[in-house]
C-alpha cells in the first residue's frame, strides 16, 4: 500500500460528500422555487455565513461538532444513542445549578468545575440506558429516545419551580442569570456573537476521540465489536463493558454541549434551551462517515446551514425550516447510498450495450 493511497481515499470521500451536499442543496433550491420563495436564498445565506458571519457559523457548529462526536462514538460500536438531547439538558441543568450555588471566585476554577459536573451529569444520564441494556437487554434505541422527554420535562419543572428566577416580573420559565464569574468566555474577535471558547473544547474533543479510536485499546475494541460483536466475545473482550464505556463518553460529550449552551450562550437555564443538537448530530456524523476529523468539516457545514436558515428568515420570506429539508435530503441520500453504485452500473451497462451493437451488426454482415 502506497503511503498516499489513504490520502487519496480521504479526498475521494470528501468529494463524494460534497457532491451529496450539492445534490441536497440543489433539490432544496428546486423546492423553494416551486413553492414561490426566493430560490437562491439558501445559497446566499450560506455564502454570507462564510464571508461576513463566521461568528454565527462557529456558534452553531460548536454544538453540532460535539453532538456529531457523541453520536459517532456510539455508532462505531454499533450502539444507538438517540438520547443526546436529554443528556444535553441534564448537563446544562447540572452546570446551571452548580453555577448558582458557587461562591464568587476565579472564573477558571468555576468554569472547570461546571464543565466537569455537566459532563458527569450527561454521563450519568446516559448510564441509565447503558445499564438497562447490559443487565436487562433493553433496546437502547427505545430507552435513550424516551429518556429525552423525561429530561426535557425535568428542566421545565426546574425552571418553572425550584430554580425559577424569583426576581423576574414576567415569570419566564428560566432560572436566574448566572453570575459573571461562571460564564464561559466568548471569543473576542467575534463580539457580540455568542461564539465562545466552547469551539476550542470541541476541537480538543475531536482530537481526544480520534486518539481513542486509533491509538488505544478501547478504540480497537470498539472497532472490533462494532463490526463483529461475535469476534469480540471470541477474542475475550467484554462487549458489555465497551457498551458502558461508549455510552459514558457519548453522554459526557452531550453534557458538555449543555454546559456550553447554558454558560456561554444563554447565561441562564431556560426551558427548552437546546436547539435539537442531538438529532442533528446524527446527520453530522453520518455525513462525516463516522470519522472524528471529518466531523469538524461536516459540523461546520451544518453550522453554516443552520445559520443560513436563520439569516434567511430574517431577510427574506423563506422559512428557516427549509434547512431541515436540506438535512432530510442529506439523510435520505446517505441512507440511499447504494443508489450511486447502482446508477453507475446502469450507465456502464448502457455503454456496454452501445459498444456491443456495432460489433454484432458487423458479425451478422
Amino acid at each position, binding site marked *: 500500500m502506497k503511503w498516499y493511497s489513504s490520502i487519496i481515499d480521504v479526498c475521494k470521500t470528501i468529494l463524494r460528500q460534497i457532491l451529496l451536499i450539492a445534490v441536497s442543496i440543489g433539490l432544496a433550491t428546486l423546492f423553494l422555487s416551486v413553492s414561490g420563495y426566493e430560490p437562491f436564498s439558501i445559497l446566499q445565506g450560506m455564502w454570507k455565513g462564510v464571508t461576513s458571519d463566521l461568528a454565527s457559523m462557529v456558534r452553531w457548529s460548536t454544538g453540532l461538532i460535539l453532538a456529531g462526536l457523541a453520536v459517532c462514538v456510539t455508532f462505531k460500536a454499533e450502539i444507538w444513542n438517540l438520547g443526546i438531547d436529554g443528556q444535553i439538558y441534564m448537563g446544562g441543568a447540572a452546570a446551571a445549578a452548580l453555577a448558582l450555588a458557587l461562591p464568587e471566585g476565579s472564573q477558571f476554577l468555576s468554569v472547570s468545575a461546571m464543565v466537569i459536573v455537566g459532563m458527569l451529569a450527561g454521563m450519568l444520564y446516559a448510564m441509565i440506558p447503558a445499564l438497562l441494556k447490559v443487565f436487562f437487554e433493553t433496546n437502547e434505541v427505545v430507552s435513550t429516545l424516551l429518556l429525552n422527554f423525561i429530561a426535557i420535562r425535568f428542566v421545565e419543572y426546574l425552571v418553572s419551580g425550584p430554580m425559577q428566577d424569583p426576581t423576574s416580573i414576567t415569570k419566564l420559565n428560566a432560572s436566574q442569570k448566572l453570575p459573571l464569574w461562571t460564564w464561559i468566555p466568548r471569543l473576542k474577535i467575534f463580539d457580540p456573537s455568542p461564539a465562545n471558547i466552547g469551539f476550542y473544547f470541541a476541537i480538543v474533543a475531536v482530537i481526544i476521540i480520534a486518539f481513542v479510536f486509533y491509538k488505544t*485499546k478501547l478504540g480497537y475494541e470498539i472497532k*472490533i465489536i462494532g463490526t463483529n460483536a461475535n469476534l469480540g*466475545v471470541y477474542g475475550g473482550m467484554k462487549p458489555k463493558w465497551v457498551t458502558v464505556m461508549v455510552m459514558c463518553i457519548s453522554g459526557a460529550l452531550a453534557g458538555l454541549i449543555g454546559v456550553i449552551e447554558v454558560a456561554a450562550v444563554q447565561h441562564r437555564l431556560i426551558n427548552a434551551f437546546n436547539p435539537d443538537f442531538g438529532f442533528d448530530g446524527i446527520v453530522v456524523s453520518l455525513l462525516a462517515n463516522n470519522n472524528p476529523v471529518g466531523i469538524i468539516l461536516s459540523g461546520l457545514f451544518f453550522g453554516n446551514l443552520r445559520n443560513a436558515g436563520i439569516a434567511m428568515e430574517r431577510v427574506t420570506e423563506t422559512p428557516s425550516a427549509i434547512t431541515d429539508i436540506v438535512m432530510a435530503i442529506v439523510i435520505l441520500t446517505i441512507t440511499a447510498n447504494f443508489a450511486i453504485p447502482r446508477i453507475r452500473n446502469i450507465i456502464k451497462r448502457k455503454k456496454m450495450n452501445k459498444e456491443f451493437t456495432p460489433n454484432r451488426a458487423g458479425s451478422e454482415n
Partner: protein
Amino acid sequence: MAYAVELLDITKKFPGVVADDNVSLFVEQGDIHGLIGENGAGKSTLMNILYGYTQPDSGVIKLFGEETKIQSPHVAIQQGIGMVHQHYMLMPNLTVLQNIILGRVPKKGLLIDEKAAKVKINKIIESFQLHIDLNARISQLSVGQKQRVEIIKALYRDARILILDEPTAVLTPSEIDKLILVLRELKNQGKTIIFITHKLREVLAVTDNLTVMRKGVVTGRLTTKETDTHELSRLMVGRDIDLRIPMADYQPGEEVIKVSNLSVFSKRNLQAVKDVSFSIKSGEIVGIAGVEGNGQTELIEAISGMTRIEGGEIQFMGEKINKFSVRRRREKGMSHIPEDRLKIGLSKSCTIRDNLILNWYYKKPYCKASVLDNGKLQSLSEKLCKEYQIKTPDSRYKLGTLSGGNMQKVVFAREVSSDPRLLIAAQPTRGVDIGAIEYIHHKIVELRDKGKAIMLVSAELDEIMSLSDRILVMYEGCIVAQFRRGEADQQTIGMYMMGAKKQEAGIV
C-alpha cells in the same frame, strides 16, 4: 453433440484482479460437466456471469447455440438456467411447497392455486425420485433435504441447465451417494448439469467432462474417463500436491484437557451436548466426526468459554476452568479456530492487521497503559503475513480483499502463533483451496508432533480420518463411538454418524 452452454472468451476484471481472463467453457447438452479449481480460480465468478449476477467485461454467452445476454438472475431463470447455491436460499419458516413456488406462484384469480402447484411439483418428484414432504417446514429438514428442495425449485422453474455450487460440501457420505443418483437421473432425462467443486474424488465419480481452472484461466479440458486425481490436482494447483502427510509416531503425553459429563444447552434452550466425557493428551489429534448440528458447535463453545455450561466439568492442565473467562482460557494456552470464520472469527470490514492482532493488542509490549503501539503491531502483523504465507501486499488492506483460503490463514496465523497447548480446530479447511488445505493440514500435524493437543472438528470425514490419532463420533449431543487410527473405515463411521449404531463401551 450440440452445446447447451457456450461461454466464449469471457473476461471479468475486479479492481486489482482479473477474475476471469478469456475463459471459454463448453458444456454439452445432457452432460454432467465438472467445473473445478481452487477457491479464487474464477469459477464462482464465471457461474455468477452465467446466472446473471454480474456482467462480463467482454465475451459472448451462447445458450443452445443462440447468443444471448443475461442481465439478471430473472433473465437466467427465463432462459432455463437454475442454480443451487452453496448456501441455500430458503425461507426457514415457510413450508417446502411455499419455498418452491416462491417467485413463480400459480394464481387462480387473486388466490394462490396450490393444487396446480402440487400437481406440477409431484410430477417432478416422481420423475426424478426426489421424495420430500411438501408440507414440512424448511427449518425441520436436514441439510441434504434442503438441497433437494433447491433442486426441485430449479426444476419447477423449468430449468434445463442446472448449476450446482459445491453441492457436497455439507453432506454426509450417504447423502452424497443419494445426490449422485439424483444427478444421474437428471442427466438421463436430458438435463444439463454444471457441477462446481474442488473435491476430486466426487468429480471423478459423477462427471462426464471437466473444465479445470486456475487463477482465472482454463488449464485443462478433459474427459473424466481419461484422467485421474493426480493429473487433476496438478492442473488445479500448478504443481504436484502431496496429500499424504508425514507424521511422527503416535506418542501421547500428559493429559491437556479432560471433559467430564459435560452438558450444554443450545441458544434455543435445547440440550445440545449430553453428558459428554473425553480427554485429549499432548501430541495427539482427536477428531470429532459427526453431521453438523449434532452438538459440536455447543461443545466447542463450552470448551472455549463462549457459552455457559449446564453441568459437568472441564479441566485444562489439571485445573478446573468451568468459570474462566474466554481471555483467561486463552492466556492459559487455549486456541480456537472457529467453524464459521466470517461469523465468529474475523471482521471483514476491519483491516488484516486488526484481525491478526486480536490476541496481542492488549499485551505488552504492544500496549502500554491502554495506548497501542501501532508501529510494533504493524510489524507483528507483517511478520505473521510472511510466516503464514498470507498473500497480500500490505496488511493494512481490508480483510474482505482476501480469498477464503487466505482469510483462513489469517485465523490460523493468529491462533497458532500464540503457541497454544490446546488447539481447537473446527472445520479448519472449509471452503479453502487445495493449496491452503495442504498447508493447514501440514501445520496441524506439525503442531501435534511438537507436543500440542489438537481437537479437530470437521464435517469432512476424509480430513478426520487422515489426521486423527483417535476419532470420536458425535450424534445428537452424545459421543456414540470411539476409534483408534485405522480401526474403522468411512462406511462404518458413517453409520455411527447417522445414529444407526452405538458403542456401549465407556469412552475415555
